[in-house]
C-alpha cells in the first residue's frame, strides 16, 4: 500500500539528481491540450513523451502543454522547439509515434518527416 511517507524517500533520492534538470534553455516539447486535443487522444501522448524523456534521462528537455493550436482536425499536435532550429509541428500523433519522435528527433536530431504537418496534410 502506497503511503505519503514514501514521498520522503523519493525526496531524498531525487534531491541529488535534480540540479541537472534545472536548466531550462534546452528543447521544448509542447502538446496541444484543449478540448480538441484531449478528445483526439492527447493525454496518453503527453504522458508517453514524459515517460520516454524520463526513461532516457534527458536533462535539458521540457515537456509542456498548450491550448488549442488552431488545427483541431489534425490533433493530437506536438510541437518541438529546439534552440537555434525552426519549430517542427507533428500532427495526428499517438503514443507510439510520440516515442519515435523523442528517440529520433529529440535524441538524434533527425526530424521524423512522415509525421510532420507537411506530410500529414497530403
Amino acid at each position, binding site marked *: *500500500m*502506497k503511503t*505519503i*511517507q*514514501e*514521498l*520522503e524517500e*523519493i*525526496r531524498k*533520492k*531525487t*534531491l541529488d539528481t*535534480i540540479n541537472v534538470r534545472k536548466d531550462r534553455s534546452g528543447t521544448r516539447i509542447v502538446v496541444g*491540450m*484543449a*478540448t*480538441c486535443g*484531449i*478528445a483526439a487522444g492527447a*493525454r*496518453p501522448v*503527453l*504522458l508517453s513523451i*514524459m515517460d520516454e*524523456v*524520463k526513461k532516457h534521462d534527458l536533462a535539458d528537455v521540457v*515537456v*509542456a*502543454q498548450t*491550448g*488549442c*493550436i*488552431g488545427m*483541431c482536425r489534425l490533433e493530437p499536435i506536438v510541437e518541438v522547439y529546439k534552440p537555434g532550429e525552426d519549430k517542427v509541428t507533428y500532427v495526428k500523433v499517438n503514443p507510439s509515434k510520440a516515442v519515435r519522435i523523442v528517440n529520433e528527433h529529440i535524441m538524434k536530431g533527425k526530424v521524423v518527416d512522415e509525421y510532420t504537418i507537411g506530410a500529414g496534410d497530403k
Partner: protein
Amino acid sequence: MKDLSLHILDLSQNSVSAGATLVKITINEDKASDKMTICIEDNGKGMDRDFLERVMDPFVTTRTSRKVGLGIPLMLAACKRCEGNLVIESEKDIGTKLTGTFRQSHIDRAPVGDMAETMLTLILTGSDGGRNIDFVYRHIIDNREFCLDTREIRNALGSGVAIEEPEVLMWVKDYINEGLANLRGGV
C-alpha cells in the same frame, strides 16, 4: 470524449485558465440512489452573470483560435443522455462550481476512465510556467472514500523537490490506481 476522466481533464483546465490556485474534483458514485455526481470547484476568477447565462452555448468561448468552445456542451450532452444534468454556479472573483449528474446505471453513461492519467496531466498543467496550482481529488463510492490532495504531497516533499518530478508523478499514479482499486473492493 471516450470517458468521464477526459471530460474532467478538459473542464478542470478551464479552472486553470481562470487563474485558480485550488481545484477540487469530486466523483461520487452511489448505488443506492443510482446516481453519479461529478463536481469541479475552483477559486478562479469566476464568470459574470451575463457570461454564465451563455456559457452552455457551443458558440461561446474564451479561446481566440476559433469561435466554438465544446468543453461544456460536450459534458452537458453526456449528462443529459444519462437522465442527468449539468449545473454551473459562478461568482465573479470568487470561483466556479460545476456539477454534472448521471444515472449511474444508464447504458449511455461512459466509464470513469483513467483518473490517474487525468490527475498527472493536471498536475503537469498546474506547474507549468512557475504556477503552483493545487488539486484535491476525492472519489466516493457508496460512502467509501479515496482522497488525493496535492497540498499534502507538496508538504511531504518540502521545498527541494517539485511535485512534477517524474519520480513523484509515478508515485502519484500508483497511489491513485491503488486507492481506486481498494475503493472498488478488489485487489
